């Protein structure tokens, strides 16, 4: 997969402290293993790579890297322990590519600096793979991480 990395995308990589090779590896792994989210219109994918301290996401089309975002909070699992039916429309705009199942908007437990709390995630009901959307990671989780860093220091 030969992806164009625009100047804007390059700046996003720098802002997030992610190397170009790293993000391309994440995309390559997602494409070969199928662990990724695909938008319902099929035009956009989200792939992720998680290390102990950072989860990195790539949002990309067939030709271009569209967005890069990260979070330090470590996703542990579904809040409450298992995926049970809920009483609201929880279908997200994404489909798990591996399972071909619509991914669900569910709370996931996240840990950072010894504190575990829930956060809004996107979860495949079949394989259980968990993601966080760009909006949540860039706003809610960034703020949460900053508060925890200040208060837990």
């Amino acid at each position, binding site marked *: 997969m030969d992806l164009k990395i625009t100047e804007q995308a390059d700046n996003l990589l720098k802002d997030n402290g992610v190397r170009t090779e790293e993000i391309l590896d994440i995309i390559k792994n997602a494409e070969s293993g199928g662990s990724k989210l695909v938008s319902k219109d099929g035009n956009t994918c989200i792939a992720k790579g998680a290390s102990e301290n950072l989860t990195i996401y790539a949002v990309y089309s067939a030709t271009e890297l569209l967005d890069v975002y990260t979070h330090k*909070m470590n996703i542990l699992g579904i*809040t*409450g322990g298992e995926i*049970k039916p*809920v*009483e*609201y*429309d929880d279908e997200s705009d994404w489909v798990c590519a591996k399972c071909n199942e619509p991914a669900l*908007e*569910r*709370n996931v437990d*996240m840990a950072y600096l*010894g*504190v*575990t*709390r*829930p*956060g*809004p995630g996107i979860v495949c009901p079949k394989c259980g793979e968990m993601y966080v*959307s760009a*909006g*949540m990671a*860039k*706003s*809610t*989780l960034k*703020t*949460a991480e900053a*508060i*925890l860093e200040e*208060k*837990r220091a």
Partner: protein
Amino acid sequence: MPAQDYVPIDQNWLENAGKLWTTPWVDKPSDRVIVDPIILSHAATLFKKNAGYFYSNPDEAVRMVCAACELYDVTPVGHYLFADYWGADYGAEMKIQANAPPGITKRPIKTPEDVDSFEVLSTEELVKGPTLTTHYKALDTVKNEYPQMFAPITQLGGTMEVATNWAAIEDVFMWMITEPELVDKLCIKAGDHMVNACKATADRYGANVMITGSVIASGDLMDREQIKRFSYNPVSRAVRKVLTAGAGPGVYYHLCGNHTDDFDMWRDAPMSPFTIVQIGYDGQDIFPTSKLVENFGDRCTCFGTVDTKLVDRGTPAQVYAQAKEQVLAGKDSPRGFILGTACECPTNAPPVNVHALVRAAKDFGKYEKF
């Protein structure tokens, strides 16, 4: 009274209260459970003023609240809000009342056609409107004069609360039976309004806490299916949108009234890392903290409550006994615990009853887990 007439907040107290307040959110060790009796116009009575004065003077109101926080040794946060937010922005007429929060006397939506043509105000329009102008006057005062007691909130209410500030409650309930799709429409618009309102506060102050949940939509007025359709679903959608828009991260689910039949639904409501759940009543009784912790303790911070009727009309001994029971059941909740009242501290509650609530937290809420 102008700012210079108040005694500066004791910094030693503030430092300690700040530590207690941090514990439920980030598990930072402290001595005991923090108490938040949701002090609003009750603070005015400590200054021989009434609710009307409180709500007509938002800058003074928060000075009184901050002083009351120190006096009672409770959560060090300067709050200002009331239930009937957001009506006036859309043309409702408000009445300032001497002994109760401001109330809406005329609502902008009167017919089903009004619902169709009703347009939600943008974030920019809301900022210029009467609700946020007043709200921000209060918050700016806290920010400038009591910066360590500044924790901005956005009083959203739930979709049914916003809807019934736009249309008369009797009309909304009639439409729920005769034209439920109309109420769906109204609640979707209320949800969109909530997102815009929260964005306004986030744009002005950054991180903030949204107060949402279900007050009108409680078991005394609606059945489970109605609560799910007109409150839980649209509120959940709105909270997700607020969080995605970066207008959180605090989420405070205030489930006022009786929630015996629907409390369990809220276990799966969208949550951020700073989420708190408070449930008022289980039937006619105060919602047991043991039940709250059992259902929400592994998810978010739990807000255990003492009956506001008891705080208003009971004896100190009764308040102390109920607070003791609630605090013992909640203090070790895995994701944090706060002791408070089922709703806002009643305006004319005897101060000794608020003191009894705090005494119970001091006597029985000591932490051993840290």
